[in-house]
């Protein structure tokens, strides 16, 4: 169906853009157009700090979206991430309030998310229940845990956290990023390396392409599928810590609906929802698109925040349609 014969490669089609790159390139073009519109409309938009702020405001989203990329690449979905982010922030806040030392809090926070992800992966793989419904239960569970910890918001006054939140890493011109942005970049680089150059990455793509073939090829399907949900849980936990840096508090209703923003970012970034095709770089672009939309709406001032949701919905539609059209042409 999708095999390319040697004659086709050597023919005049050689210089065409590979189809699997089309969604990513479309996102890149969209991002550039949006940025250009911003710069042409608002003078302050060309300020470098505007770009940095997009990263600062969306660092946690970026990390969570990277985890989601792994899951979607295998053809699964993880609806629990928003709740796990909130739960991690709540756990951090409540433990710090109780006087637990910061390093210990970090370790505990980084363990809870992956554990939940691991358990969900086990159920999904061994009991053959749809990822959607298992992670939905995980979402319920984590959100319930949030309110079980506390019904109201808990402020964080720990020194380590406040330093992490307020530390500015910048250049001589006064532009700066936060520590969260650097952490997010590290996560992105590690994830990109894992997907592109390791055996786990190959297995993730293989399972997303065709789980049956992957199994017949002798690939460790069970281990890989459980691993991606664990990775997604870990990324959600890191995202939760970054969010607690950002807001310096833990609130039970924080990050409600975040899973949808994350899925939207991954899809807009060109990862195909049926699995098997996509890049971490695309996800970074997807998060940037969402961030720039928010920035544009903030700059405009007359548009209200709900326009963000409508625009994100519209873009989600456009990119799914694009994926679909490319899919049809393949056939």
């Amino acid at each position: 169906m999708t095999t390319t014969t040697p004659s086709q490669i050597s023919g005049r089609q050689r210089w065409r853009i590979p189809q699997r790159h089309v969604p990513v390139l479309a996102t890149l073009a969209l991002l550039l157009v949006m940025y250009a519109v911003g710069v042409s409309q608002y003078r302050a938009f060309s300020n470098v700090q505007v770009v940095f702020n997009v990263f600062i405001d969306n660092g946690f989203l970026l990390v969570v979206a990277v985890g989601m990329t792994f899951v979607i690449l295998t053809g699964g979905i993880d609806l629990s991430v928003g709740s796990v982010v909130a739960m991690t922030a709540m756990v951090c806040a409540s433990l710090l309030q109780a006087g637990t030392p910061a390093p210990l809090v970090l370790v505990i926070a980084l363990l809870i998310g992956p554990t939940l992800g691991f358990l969900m992966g086990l159920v999904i793989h061994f009991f053959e229940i749809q990822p959607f419904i298992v992670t939905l239960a995980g979402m319920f569970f984590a959100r319930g845990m949030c309110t079980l910890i506390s019904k109201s918001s808990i402020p964080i006054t720990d020194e380590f956290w406040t330093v992490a939140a307020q530390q500015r890493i910048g250049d001589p011109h006064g532009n700066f990023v936060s520590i969260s942005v650097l952490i997010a970049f590290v996560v992105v680089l590690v994830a990109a390396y894992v997907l592109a150059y390791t055996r786990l990455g190959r297995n993730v793509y293989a399972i997303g392409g065709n789980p049956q073939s992957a199994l017949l090829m002798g690939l460790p399907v069970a281990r890989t599928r459980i691993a991606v949900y664990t990775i997604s849980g870990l990324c959600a936990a890191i995202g939760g810590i970054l969010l607690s840096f950002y807001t310096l508090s833990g609130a039970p209703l924080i990050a409600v609906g975040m899973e949808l923003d994350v899925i939207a970012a991954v899809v807009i970034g060109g990862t195909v929802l049926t699995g098997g095709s996509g890049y971490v770089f695309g996800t970074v672009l997807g998060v940037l698109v969402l961030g720039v939309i928010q920035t544009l709406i903030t700059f405009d001032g007359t548009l209200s925040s709900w326009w963000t949701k409508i625009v994100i919905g519209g873009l989600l539609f456009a990119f799914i349609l694009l994926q679909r059209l490319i899919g049809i042409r393949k056939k």
Partner: protein
Amino acid sequence: MSTWTARRDAIAGHSLFWPALALIALVVANTVYRPGFLAVEMKDGHLYGSLVDILRLSAPLILVALGMTLVIATGGIDLSVGSMCAISGAVACLYISKQPDQNAVGGVLISLVLGVGLALVLGAWNGALVAVIGIQPIIATLILMVAGRGLAQLITEGQIITINSDPYKAIGVGHLLTLPLSIFIAAAVTVLIMLVTRRTALGLIIESVGGNAQASRLAGIRSGRIMFLVYVISAVCAAIAGFMITANVSSADGNAAGQWIELDAILAVVIGGTSLAGGRFSLGGTILGALIIQTLTTTVYAMNISPQTSLLFKAVVVIIVCLVQAPAFRARIVPRRAAGPAAPAVTDQPKEQVPA
């Protein structure tokens, strides 16, 4: 095998057995915890009591879950119902708030027509994405789930629209024949859907499409049209639920109305024994499922646990129900004893028996 065990197996094997047992267990647990739970008293010509409350509060969920059942029966899923509730409620409340006389029945009726009309359009949009363009249902409806909240807030301009209309309020808290009106609305929709799906071939056709859309199409069923139809029905059900939710509080909040209801509805459908894979559905099971969820929620409230924490209980219920339903889980946990005695019974049949 004695007739008693046969009868017992027949009852235990009935699709509604486990949901009904769960509901009864919940009610019993509640009665033990709070002896006044079953009491129903007459006040001002209306019946009051926990049971009536549970019925009244579960009406919106029952409506949404009925629509969801049909969607899931075709192998799809509709995540946009919560947003749909918010949108239709917002449109209706906005129209009423603009009327000079908010108590005019005519104005309220027009507002309902507007709300349902918009739901028809949005349902058609969902249906077109799934049936015509061929996008996975979970993703196709995700679009409206995200954008729909924005749309609802756009309609209400980010405000909470408060109205003061008695006819509209009646949809949520009115009474008819001593019982809450919302129960009758939910019952009417239930009866209508049951009649249409079980007295005509529609139910069978829906199950056929859910079983194998391609094969159904080759067998002469317009699969695409059926898929389109179920999303429209689901949207209309959600719209009516949206009226109820907003009428309950006499205000429309684009952000909060119908929040989490899509998850509750899916849960109700799954508890009711409808497989998420599609191909068969049980409306009775769905209603039992919705009642279980509402009873669970009410129980959790009664125990002074915050509403959000009830999600924890729901999570546990979802996992247990799914595990019990999953063939892979049964194969691992339950020893295969049913296969033993049943097999000889089949082989005993003479092979050359001519059907009468």
